[in-house]
């Protein structure tokens, strides 16, 4: 399924980058069409921004339901073996949704402490579990890993918190007209924020700065 969006920015490069961020895609996965070359004009007179149309091609490596289930199972087996060796009793649930195998670790009993340990500070241990799972699944199945590991819906809760904060900031900008710059975020988090801001009328968002200091800026729509 192709998705396409149009974006404008002072340069073609920035417009493409904004579009890629919104699509959550890499440059290799899209076709770019420049609709308007930017012009700087004279003292701002006659200046025009670059406008690009970016189309996300259907991903070639989209996996079948069977392949996703296989990946989910390999991931669950690996994580169960790991949990056993950590001396933890927890369940691992697999759910196939939107072309992704979601593998969630859930405590068997009321064992909050163990689950907190698996998430780690700022989710760092969870990211480590994700990384190891990605490598193991890639090795076993020979395909690109489409598994997302979670612990007690940590990712879901983080996302909900981020959406609430982005909405609040966007509404404040709409009310006061003053721009708001959020703290540095990774590409996934910025996409969540852009999607949320797009639902609030009268405001627009873009990103500025370089990774890992890249931040979302919310402004009133001119």
């Amino acid at each position, binding site marked *: 399924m192709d998705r396409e969006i149009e974006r404008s920015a002072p340069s073609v490069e920035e417009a493409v980058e904004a579009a890629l961020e919104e699509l959550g895609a890499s440059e290799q996965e899209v076709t770019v069409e420049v609709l308007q070359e930017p012009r700087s004009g004279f003292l701002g007179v006659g200046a025009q921004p670059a406008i690009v149309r970016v189309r996300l091609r259907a991903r070639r490596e989209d996996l079948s339901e069977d392949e996703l289930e296989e990946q989910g199972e390999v991931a669950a087996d690996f994580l169960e073996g790991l949990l056993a060796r*950590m*001396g933890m009793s927890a369940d691992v649930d697999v759910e196939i949704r939107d072309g992704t195998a979601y593998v969630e670790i859930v405590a068997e009993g009321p064992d909050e402490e163990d689950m907190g340990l698996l998430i780690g500070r700022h989710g760092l241990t969870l990211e*480590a579990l994700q990384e190891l799972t990605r490598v193991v699944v890639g090795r076993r199945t020979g395909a690109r890993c489409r598994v997302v590991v979670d612990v007690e819906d940590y990712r879901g809760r983080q996302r909900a918190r981020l959406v609430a904060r982005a909405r609040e900031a966007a509404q404040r900008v709409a009310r006061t007209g003053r721009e708001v710059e959020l703290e540095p975020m990774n590409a996934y988090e910025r996409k969540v924020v852009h999607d949320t801001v797009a639902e609030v009328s009268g405001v627009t968002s873009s990103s500025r700065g370089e990774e890992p200091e890249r931040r979302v800026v919310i402004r009133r729509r001119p």
Partner: protein
Amino acid sequence: MRELLEYLAKELVDDPDAVEVTELSDDRGTLLQLRVGPDDMGKVIGRGGRTARAIRTVVKAAALRQGVHAAVEILD
């Protein structure tokens, strides 16, 4: 922890029989030394050291659960 590290390494390499973990403990904590086959070094280190970093993070979490301090050393 030793069993955990052995498990992780064996899941990542092509030659699980070559995986060897030595555990050294003193009053400051536990040092786990990991050895893998020469062709498998890259597998446990990963691009930019990502896999090695993930292994260390998980082993540290397991150690924390037992209230000890642990470090992982990868030997070639």
